[in-house]
């Protein structure tokens, strides 16, 4: 039994502790309610390795046997995923070129084991399988993977860098379960994906092949997400602007407040050449300026943000001074700004040109949207904040 004085002392301590706890909880509750984040997503692209011309700092001779076989930059891509998960991203949009591909995922020369193993079809499926294995842990720990087709998935280089129906089919065979498993989405993200549109919308842009699960869209709350295939069969280097316009219009009419569009190729090529040198040749949708302008007009009309890859480099720009193009194509593939090149060493180009990079976007309750780009250098230094932008609501 406690001495009375001790009991009084204990009561005072208890009362003071309770008061302190209440104040702490109140302060924390007030602080937490300032403008909470309602949804966080990340985006990156281009993790595939190159068997012929790997990055200068990671020559093929030093690539691991694993990466030589499955053609991934495992070290960079795994680290990016670690950080994205630490940032509590509920969604990860991967903007294409997750595999080397670039062949024809069609019939094999013969049914012999040797020919099957040597076939492009086998290479596609093998590389897809490795990439899916790399992202599987993210799906099990709170981050839903949303894939975006890139030119290495849908085009064949030997066939003139043209998209192929066989490759579009291989895309659906290897990524289709993610586009979109609404039950799994709800379990991972915690909220429903609604107004899911993954069907064949090719007719909007007079496309010849089935575009189901290649260009698609869905809502999460008042945010609308659209994925565009920038290399559809018969119309390479174009985005389905007509479908996108209709899709964003529908989303807006049902109350969407935020519009995020993901594609592989940039609408505006980022020139990483140093000042005074010839600019980087057009490598994205700007190969066809007319269709590109149609696409960008849609982006501007809906104050959307366009996330892309293809160029293995980081850049954020506002081509027309309003909507952002966020280029996060340095997910592990050989940098476009080559080691030792003037663009990388002159000091005239941003020191982020050779940074593995991604962007994380937070939508706040107030409607404010924060875009933060992160990256680490080609020597795998500390993770830096490369650029931040806030979208006005």
């Amino acid at each position: 039994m406690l001495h009375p004085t001790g009991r009084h002392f204990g009561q005072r301590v208890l009362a003071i502790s309770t008061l302190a706890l209440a104040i702490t909880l109140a302060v924390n509750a007030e602080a937490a309610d300032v403008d909470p984040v309602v949804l966080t997503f990340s985006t990156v692209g281009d993790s595939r390795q190159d068997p012929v011309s790997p990055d200068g700092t990671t020559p093929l001779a030093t690539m691991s046997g694993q990466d030589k076989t499955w053609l991934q930059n495992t070290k960079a891509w795994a680290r990016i995923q670690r950080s994205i998960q630490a940032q509590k991203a509920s969604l990860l949009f991967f903007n294409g070129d997750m595999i080397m591909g670039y062949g024809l995922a069609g019939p094999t020369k013969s049914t012999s084991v040797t020919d099957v193993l040597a076939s492009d079809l086998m290479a596609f499926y093998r590389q897809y399988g490795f990439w899916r294995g790399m992202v599987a842990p993210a799906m099990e720990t709170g981050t839903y993977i949303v894939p975006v087709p890139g030119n290495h998935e849908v085009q064949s280089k030997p066939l003139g860098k043209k998209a192929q129906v066989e490759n579009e089919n291989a895309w659906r065979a290897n990524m289709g379960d993610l586009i979109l498993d609404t039950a799994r989405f709800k379990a991972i993200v915690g909220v429903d994906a609604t107004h899911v549109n993954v069907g064949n919308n090719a007719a909007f842009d007079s496309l010849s092949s089935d575009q189901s699960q290649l260009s698609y869209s869905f809502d999460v709350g008042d945010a609308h997400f659209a994925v565009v295939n920038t290399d559809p069969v018969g119309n390479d280097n174009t985005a389905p602007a007509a479908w996108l316009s209709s899709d964003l219009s529908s989303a807006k009419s049902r109350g969407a407040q935020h519009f995020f569009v993901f594609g592989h190729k940039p609408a505006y090529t980022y020139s990483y050449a140093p000042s005074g040198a010839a600019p980087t040749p057009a490598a994205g949708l700007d190969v066809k300026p007319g269709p590109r302008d149609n696409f960008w007009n849609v982006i501007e009309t809906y104050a959307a943000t366009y996330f892309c890859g293809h160029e293995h480099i980081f850049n954020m720009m506002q081509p027309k001074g309003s909507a952002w193009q966020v280029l996060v194509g340095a997910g592990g593939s050989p940098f476009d700004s080559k080691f030792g090149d003037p663009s990388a060493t002159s000091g005239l180009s941003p020191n982020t040109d050779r940074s593995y990079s991604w962007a994380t976007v937070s939508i706040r309750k107030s409607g404010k949207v924060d875009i933060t780009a992160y990256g680490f250098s080609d020597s795998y230094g500390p993770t830096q904040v490369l650029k931040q932008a806030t979208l006005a609501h």
Partner: protein
Amino acid sequence: MLRKMFAAFAAGMLAAAAADATTLIDTGTPDGSVAGFAVDATDFLAVEFNAPTAWRVDGIGAYLVGGNPGDHFAVSLYRDAAGLPGDLIASTPVSFLADGWNQVSLLGWLLPGAGHYWLGLEGTVSETVPGLPVPDGSFVATAGALTMPGATAFSDGSYMGYRRDASIQFGLQVTGAVPEPASLALMAFGLGLVGVASARGRRR
């Protein structure tokens, strides 16, 4: 009455011993000219410092931006091991309140002796606290006879642990005391008196 006077005297002894609290490290407030580095559940930053004597670390402040109010990060004190953070001496969570200086106080961490140590900023909850802009200048101590700028290191969550990297700069403030032998004796004496007072109270 006598017990109250006794307790007050003991408290006075402790207060006198703690009265020499001072700034041990102060990098200055970052100017925001550079976005900075990420601190989250996998990305850690650390800075080495040289304590010329057995410091007592009372408060630590880190200049952070971009976190969510209510998030936590940790400050950790390590022994130096071949130029990198070694054995952990102490660690405590700090609540992120707002952009700017986020501080923790009343630590009372006693360094075992003079030598090289590391202070790490580490995410304890999986939330991002990005953006540690470059301070005005570099790691410059305003007190404590430090060997600064100190070395810096980072961890990216891989098996390699902390790695040195000279490029890291971030805002850091450390307050505490450089106890002299007399102060240490006074503190020990004060603590002893508190213990005696407490024991007498329990016996009654």
